[in-house]
């Protein structure tokens, strides 16, 4: 069943990418995002210092921005992927995020890995439910070299905006998640990886399970 979802999702991702998405030059996106992060790094400094960047504050700010983007982006996402229907479980959510969501907005398909939690359909049973998204290619971080000040390599999550986007978007569809980066090639790790953990389904309006 998982494989069926996978191929269906990737077909849909391709289809939407080809027919329904307005595209811009990747360089415009990369350079714009780069300027944004660099500017944040200049603006947010540690208390009582002039030029020491507070990278934790930069991470938080990027996440906050991403959250605001996610809240709006989800509407666009749902409009373009109309015939998806509801995801019946969190595993499907992961597939759709990777194969449709990332494909639609960034034209990359991160691999879903490190699945943790009860078997499909029984998420209510308790225990943490989480997965990792492994980005082979990260359009945001192309050309980037982190500043060589001895701290950026350990503290800055350059693409943290993506975490915020996921958090914001999923919250709008009644899923409270926690998303964070666990590794980044910019820091010298082997892969760029995000961990997404389901905190809970928000109660006010459970997605109807109709198929």
């Amino acid at each position, binding site marked *: 069943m998982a494989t069926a979802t996978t191929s269906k999702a990737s077909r849909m991702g391709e289809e939407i990418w080809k027919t329904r998405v307005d595209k811009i030059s990747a360089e415009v996106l990369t*350079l714009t995002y780069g300027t944004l992060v660099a500017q944040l790094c200049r603006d947010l400094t540690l208390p009582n210092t002039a030029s020491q960047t507070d990278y934790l504050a930069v991470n938080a700010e990027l996440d906050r921005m991403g959250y605001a983007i996610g809240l709006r982006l989800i509407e666009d996402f749902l409009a373009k992927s109309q015939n998806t229907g509801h995801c019946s479980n969190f595993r499907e959510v992961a597939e759709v995020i990777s194969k449709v969501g990332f494909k639609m907005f960034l034209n990359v398909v991160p691999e879903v890995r490190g699945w943790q939690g009860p078997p499909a359909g029984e998420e209510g049973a308790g225990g943490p439910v989480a997965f990792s998204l492994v980005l082979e290619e990260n359009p945001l971080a192309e050309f980037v070299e982190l500043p060589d000040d001895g701290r950026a390599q350990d503290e800055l999550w350059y693409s943290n905006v993506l975490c915020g986007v996921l958090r914001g978007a999923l919250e709008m569809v009644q899923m409270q998640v926690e998303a964070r980066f666990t590794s980044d090639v910019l820091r010298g790790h082997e892969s760029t990886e995000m961990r997404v953990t389901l905190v809970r389904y928000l109660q006010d309006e459970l997605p109807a399970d109709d198929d």
Partner: protein
Amino acid sequence: MDSRAPSIAAIGVLGRHNNPLHISLFPSTTLDPATAQPVPQEHRDKLDYAFKLNSCLDIFEARMPSKSIGHDFGLLHALDERIAMYGWLLNTGVKLVIVVDMEGAPVKAGSAAATGLGLRGGDLTPAFQALQTAYIRLLRNPFYVPDEHDPKLAVDRKGSLQIMSPRFTKEVERIGKAWYPGIPAI
């Protein structure tokens, strides 16, 4: 003595205001008989090459008015039988200089230089192109601010204005080592 082939002795990147942005030196090499790998032979003096690169600046200046199109300045000058300097001027005023040592490396089997003809005009083009690409990559890094490497514009001058990027340095290193006369692309 064995016949020797040209190799790159030094690569210099000079800023718009003639400030040195980056200098890489490459020792001349000889073949290690045991492993048949190139090993360093003679060391090149940093200050010496800094002066040599500085000496190119006047030539750029002098030729600038007559140069209407193109950025390839070709041979800038030859210091002696071995050392010759070639230059490119980028549109932003950044100058790329490659110093070639005509006897810097052992002859590679089957390479064009084995005929002893020296360098042809376009021989350095791939190296300059690769260097320009490396410089463009550096500029696209959002954390690299060109103005901070400009003596007239830098706000807080903390010593050196040189390029510190490890990726750029590594790439220049690679270009300097990879080049040989007649290489199609680097």
